[in-house]
């Protein structure tokens, strides 16, 4: 579904991503693991045209997307929940969600019942629909960030550190949701520092070190070879 081939990302003279190749098949959950500064976010951002790609190609369903604008990519059904949630803090929960439907248009979102669907996934957002997003708790903001991205019913969702800074029960809720949505046909590429959690959830994983892919394979392969331990991950993340 998504193919990243020989991708490099430069920030000025700094090369953050070096010839990374990875692929995500429809219906999969794929994880990207790696230490701080390894280049994980840069890879996801480059897929959405938000990080400067200096070489390589990115294709979605066989068509090149690396020269498209961010908004054009999102309209193709690929979206990103960015690191650090980044909800629109001055807007209400309902207004954030309504903007999330922009990619497919408000009418189509109404026809698809997007809002009711999000509120059924996250009842806490329904209770707080008139509240300013900036006043939500961290966990609620992450729910809103995911809900906002789901409003346009994307086929492939990139999640950048969805567990960052959240209480264990909220993390469980979000990962249960990811597994549930996969059964409904959604595809996920997720970046996680909590390697144990990611390996419990994903079908395949990539390990990124200093901007390059150092290992890839099934969660079992990662555990047997203690790949994650080698790159200095604690089980607790």
């Amino acid at each position, binding site marked *: 579904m998504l193919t990243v081939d020989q991708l490099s990302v430069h920030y000025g003279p700094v090369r953050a991503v070096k010839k990374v190749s990875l692929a995500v098949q429809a219906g999969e959950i794929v994880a990207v693991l790696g230490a701080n500064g390894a280049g994980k976010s840069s890879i996801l951002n480059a897929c*959405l045209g*938000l990080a400067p790609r200096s070489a390589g190609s990115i294709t979605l369903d066989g068509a090149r997307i690396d020269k498209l*604008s*961010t*908004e054009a990519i*999102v*309209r193709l059904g690929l*979206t*990103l929940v*960015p690191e650090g949630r*980044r909800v*629109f*803090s*001055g*807007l209400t929960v309902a*207004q954030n969600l*309504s*903007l*999330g439907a*922009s*990619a*497919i248009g*408000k009418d189509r979102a109404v026809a698809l019942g997007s809002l009711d669907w999000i509120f059924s996934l996250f009842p806490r957002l329904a209770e707080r629909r008139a509240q300013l997003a900036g006043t939500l708790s961290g966990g609620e903001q992450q729910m809103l960030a995911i809900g*906002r*991205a789901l409003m*346009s019913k994307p086929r492939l969702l990139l999640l950048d550190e969805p567990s960052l800074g959240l209480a264990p029960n909220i993390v469980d809720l979000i990962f249960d949701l990811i597994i549930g949505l996969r059964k409904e046909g959604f595809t996920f590429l997720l970046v996680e520092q909590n390697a144990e959690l990611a390996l419990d959830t994903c079908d395949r994983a990539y390990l990124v070190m200093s901007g390059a892919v150092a290992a890839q394979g099934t969660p079992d392969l990662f555990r047997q070879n203690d790949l994650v331990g080698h790159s200095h991950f604690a089980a607790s993340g």
Partner: protein
Amino acid sequence: MDYFAQQAVNALALGGTYALLALGLAVVFSILGLINFAHGELMTITGYGLVFSLAAGVPYPGALICGVALAVFCAVAMERVAFRPVRRASATTMLLTSFAVSSILHTAFQNFISARPKPVPVPEWLGGAFTLAGIQIGAIPSLSILVTVVALATLVWFFQSAQTGLAMRAASEDFAVTRLMGINANRVIAASFAISGFLAAVAGILWLFQRGSVDPMMGFVPVLKAFIAAVLGGLGSLQGAVLGGLILGATEVMLRAYLPEALLGFRDAIALALIIGLLIVFPNGLMGRPIQAR
């Protein structure tokens, strides 16, 4: 007492006009980080649009619409031609670009239209006044207040409820994530220029009614005042721009009305000193967010 009430009406009228102008600057600044010093030229363009449509025989209401439409068109064109190529450049580059646009337009007005003021016919009833609760109130200040209130109410609705308005507020918070919503960045920016052009046009018409003529430099002083108002309110804050405009207008009118004769010449200096005093107490402006280290 009557004198004070009359001055209060004048204060609201002038403050409202400044508020509209400052709001036009703030709408663009909040999204692009650009202070558009060519904003004043949009007022001037409205004036010429009005004058030339009237000369071409367009009836007055139609000529007003032509003036506004021309300013909106020029605002959007300005973004497309001058600001879009430097959108990713530094704030200083964008600021210099806006100075360049402003002086190119000045020169064009001087060479292709006229360096001298062109009279703007003002409807006769605007010269009048009426009496409300024993107070004589001029038609122009009343109209200014009415127009300001309607324009502000429309904008409040737009930014609270219209999808484009929400997208503009979102873009002012986090442009990249706004694009992740599938919202077209160029369209949001064009919309912000269209709105700022509209506000400049409305303020320009009110300004013209006061002065009765349009000349190439007409926009210079008001845009400077609007800039001061926007800084006072907190650059980028829309409510702040309105508040700053009202305070600046009120300060100017009240100083003119109550300063002793000997001090009248220092009116602007005193007004600016008061505003600097306020800025010392509120360094980010009255409603501005603290500026983050970038």
